């Protein structure tokens, strides 16, 4: 009875604490089975084989306070989290008289053509900030952080279009199969993932096969141990049965 009383208190306390903590930590309660696969990449112009079920990419907007033209640190991300940027205090400079800065990230429907010998991979995003209330020009005095989701297939780097030409940037790819890459963005303009012409536009059969093997490998291993566990339990129960009869 004491165990049940303790259990009831722990259950209620745990549920209440989990509910209160959830909003602060911004994560679902447990999810520790395996890594949750990311949602499919959202294409502005999907490849023919991915046209079915494709959802259009989303933009993002953030309004940041800018007392005396100095923008506080902050960031903006698209609502589908395909592009995330953030910058430190003083990175953005707005004209005098600006009270706030509106920063936007928008997928570009008609992007500038890529340089010769390379192809666009995924979407081109336009990143821009304007000062309010007079739509004043905001400039980036130093680089800011940009993380971009990359679509399946080969991607060599993320490039920046300054209004005249594309510039390749030193790109850091996330490890462990995470489909994200980051750069130090030099300014406002268009950004896109690119690859040399002729490289794969979708995941290779080999990587698909390795994922397939990994998945069924886990299942096979767990099933094997499960069968051993059940066999052990049956054997144990059989061994216990005669002693139970004797006691009676």
């Amino acid at each position: 009875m004491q165990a049940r009383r303790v259990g009831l208190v722990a259950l209620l306390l745990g549920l209440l604490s989990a509910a209160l903590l959830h909003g602060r930590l911004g994560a679902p309660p447990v999810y520790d089975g395996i890594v949750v696969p990311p949602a499919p990449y959202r294409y502005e112009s999907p490849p023919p084989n991915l046209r079915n079920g494709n959802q259009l990419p989303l933009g993002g907007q953030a309004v940041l306070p800018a007392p005396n033209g100095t923008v506080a640190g902050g960031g903006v991300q698209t609502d589908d989290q395909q592009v995330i940027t953030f910058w430190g205090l003083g990175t953005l400079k707005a004209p005098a008289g600006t009270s706030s800065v509106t920063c936007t990230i928008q997928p570009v429907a008609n992007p500038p053509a890529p340089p010769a010998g390379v192809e666009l991979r995924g979407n081109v995003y336009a990143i821009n900030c304007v000062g309010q209330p007079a739509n004043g020009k905001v400039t980036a005095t130093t680089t800011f952080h940009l993380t971009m989701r990359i679509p399946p297939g080969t991607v060599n780097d993320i490039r920046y279009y300054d209004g005249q030409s594309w510039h390749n940037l030193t790109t850091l790819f996330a490890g462990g199969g995470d489909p994200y890459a980051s750069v130090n963005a030099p300014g406002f303009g268009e950004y896109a993932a690119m690859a040399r012409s002729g490289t794969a536009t979708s995941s290779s059969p080999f990587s698909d096969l390795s994922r397939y093997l990994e998945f069924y490998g886990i299942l096979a291993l767990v099933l094997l141990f499960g069968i051993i566990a059940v066999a052990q339990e049956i054997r144990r129960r059989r061994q216990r049965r005669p002693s139970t009869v004797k006691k009676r």
Partner: protein
Amino acid sequence: MIQARLAAPRRAALLTSLVLGAAVVRALLLPIGDGFSTAVFAASLLAIAVIDGRALRPSPVAGEGATPAWRLAWSVLLGVVVGMLLIGPAITDRLADRPIGDFWSWAAIAAIVASLEETAIRGVLYRHWLAEAGPLAAVAIGAVVFSLIHLPRYGLTALPLDFAVGLALGGLRSVTSRVIPCAVAHTIADWGAWFWA
């Protein structure tokens, strides 16, 4: 009796170390691949449960005879309710647009790993700590172990939340005297990640 009380904590502590060790091994193997490290972790937990051998049987409760089927059904239902309550705070978040067609295979593995964690923590560890140190210690140590095994993946910020969830699952174990409702609640909470993470 004295001998049993002296012997038990060593076994409970040893099994607790084994479960924590399995989590450390999982963290060390993570660079090789998430699938491989998860498989090793799952196999280790299963091995601990098999070695102990008593994890899946309900705790003996004074004054109760054989467990009727309705009690099992009630406890599973309670597990479903607790699982729903655990994902409750997340359902106001924006829905992730993962395709439902891919959900089932992922959900099967998540269910297996969640059930194995419950078998090890709320099964093996709970039973041993209950016998030695009482229900409060069994629930509290289970919650600590539960939060610690998630530390490598989610970091310190998730520690209080995982401790709270561990407390709730330990409480569920005490209330129902069974591991199955804990596995059900844990699995439902994990599945929520597909839709809201």
